[in-house]
């Protein structure tokens, strides 16, 4: 391998890892602070710059947590599979970090390099979904290697949930791929230049909502955090993890939240294209990250609001609501674009109206169908 290629790859990828690791620390602080405020608490506010009395709203908390995590004792349960217990957090982190390469973040210093960035690949979006799928294996590995019933239960729950929600996730991304005619992330970003975002249409909005819900489930965020439900399964698949391995899981979880929010921004929210902003390289990166943080703020807000779902509700929601709705959405989008081939305002308005009616009634009907049938409890053995 030529040295030039290697250095170019490093120059293109190392900043990604650094930026997102820093943002991870900031996000943990943001999440704790926001959740605390939602619950009428203050949240972390003591830790700041060491050896001074400056507390900086507790911004030193993530660093302090990190130092604590590193120096904590690493416990491997008796009877656990030591090798896989060690490998699981690493395997969780690697795909999470890898998929960051598929986000169309064009740093200004990469202009002069060889085109080594992964988002220039012809099938970047497919790669994104494929590599995200590896995360499932890591979760199972962690649950299985711990030799703990709760861990294994959490792992199995996680697998069932991730596999189910991957289908609506991919199907809602299909809308965008259909429209752009490419799986290339850079082309998808380019197709949305000038405020022409995909979310600004009935089918695009529906697809975005489905994508966002499925992304919440895919990253085990509340209200879909059954795999790590602390009140049911202690902590799910990472019950038996402590110290640095736990920190790796934590990092992987947040990095995958960044990655999937980044993909949502790429697919539906116009990537780095700001509304009415000039197309400068730095500005587009800032714009991208701001949009990612808006999505993360909504995730935190939802976490502070919604209670956790039951397992049957979770699976039913994926298979009976999201999947049919996303299939209907693909059909609607296809017909709408077929009808809109000529530039005609009346036809556009009509297709929009029809699409809104069809999508709304489908969602409403599916919601009614998935309504749980309440009946009187039957007592079999007690009278």
């Amino acid at each position, binding site marked *: 391998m030529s040295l030039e290629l290697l250095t170019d790859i490093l120059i293109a990828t190392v900043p990604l890892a650094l930026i997102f690791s820093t943002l991870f620390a900031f996000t943990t602080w943001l999440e704790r602070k926001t959740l605390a405020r939602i619950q009428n608490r203050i949240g972390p506010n003591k830790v700041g710059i060491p050896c001074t009395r400056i507390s900086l709203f507790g911004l030193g908390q993530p660093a302090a947590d990190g130092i604590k995590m590193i120096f904590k004792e690493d416990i491997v349960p008796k009877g656990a599979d030591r090798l896989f217990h060690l490998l699981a957090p690493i395997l969780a982190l690697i795909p999470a970090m890898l998929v960051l390469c598929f986000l169309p973040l064009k740093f200004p210093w990469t202009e002069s390099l060889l085109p080594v960035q992964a988002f220039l690949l012809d099938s970047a979006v*497919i790669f994104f979904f494929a590599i995200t799928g*590896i995360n499932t*294996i890591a979760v199972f590995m962690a649950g299985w290697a711990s030799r703990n019933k709760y861990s294994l239960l959490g792992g199995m729950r996680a697998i069932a949930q991730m*596999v189910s929600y991957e289908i609506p996730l991919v199907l809602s991304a299909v809308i965008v791929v259909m429209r752009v005619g490419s799986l290339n992330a850079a082309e998808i970003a380019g197709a949305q230049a000038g405020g022409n975002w995909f979310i600004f249409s009935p089918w695009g909005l529906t697809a975005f909502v489905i994508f966002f819900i499925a992304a919440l489930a895919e990253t085990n965020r509340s209200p879909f955090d059954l795999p790590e439900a602390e009140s049911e399964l202690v902590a799910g698949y990472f019950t038996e993890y402590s110290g640095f391995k736990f920190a790796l899981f934590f990092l992987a979880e947040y990095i995958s939240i960044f990655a999937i929010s980044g993909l949502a921004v790429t697919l539906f929210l116009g990537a780095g294209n700001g509304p009415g902003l000039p197309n400068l390289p730095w500005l587009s990166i800032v714009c991208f990250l701001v949009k990612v943080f808006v999505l993360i703020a909504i995730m935190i807000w939802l976490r502070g609001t919604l209670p956790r779902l039951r397992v049957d509700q979770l699976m039913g929601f994926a298979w009976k609501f999201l999947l049919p709705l996303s299939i209907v959405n693909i059909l609607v989008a296809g017909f709408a674009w077929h009808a809109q081939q000529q530039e005609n305002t009346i036809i556009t308005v009509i297709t929009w109206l029809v699409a809104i009616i069809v999508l709304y009634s489908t969602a409403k009907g599916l919601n009614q169908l998935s309504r749980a049938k309440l009946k009187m409890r039957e007592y079999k053995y007690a009278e």
Partner: protein
Amino acid sequence: MNGEIAFWILSAIAVLGALVAVRKRNLVHGVFALLVFFAGLSGLFLLLLAEFIAAVQVLVYIGAVGILLLFAIMLTERVAGDDGRRMTSRGWFWGLLAATAIFLVLLLPPIQQWPAPEAAQTVEPSVEQLGHKLMNPYVITLEVLALLLTAALIGAVTAAQAVRLDKEDEPPV
């Protein structure tokens, strides 16, 4: 030169993964080794400039087949530890013999044409071309495949479904 190093590393990964997957007594370890094999093969596909197939390999084999195998293992036997039973089948010797024979047969074509005549093409197919192929000349195949997958889905669900007994007092099979 780079390609050669990558080829040797990736083929070593694939062969080791396959060997461990086939010989490991612990089934969960076997599945993890099989996943390593799939990953190595996906790297080889990338090396052959078939990036779409590499992505599909990861998506289908690691993301779906591996999970399915893990679920099947969890639903059937106790996997951890040594149960002390014989691992190989009764006719293992004849199986080994037949496998060796087939291996020799498979080696014949490369040996007959040694050294290899042609060099690799460097045409990189775009996913768009592939899509046009799938939608124009091969659309019937694609539809048949979709039908096959649906049938397999329904068949798998029916086959794996627990037998529902009408009488409640009989224990479930």
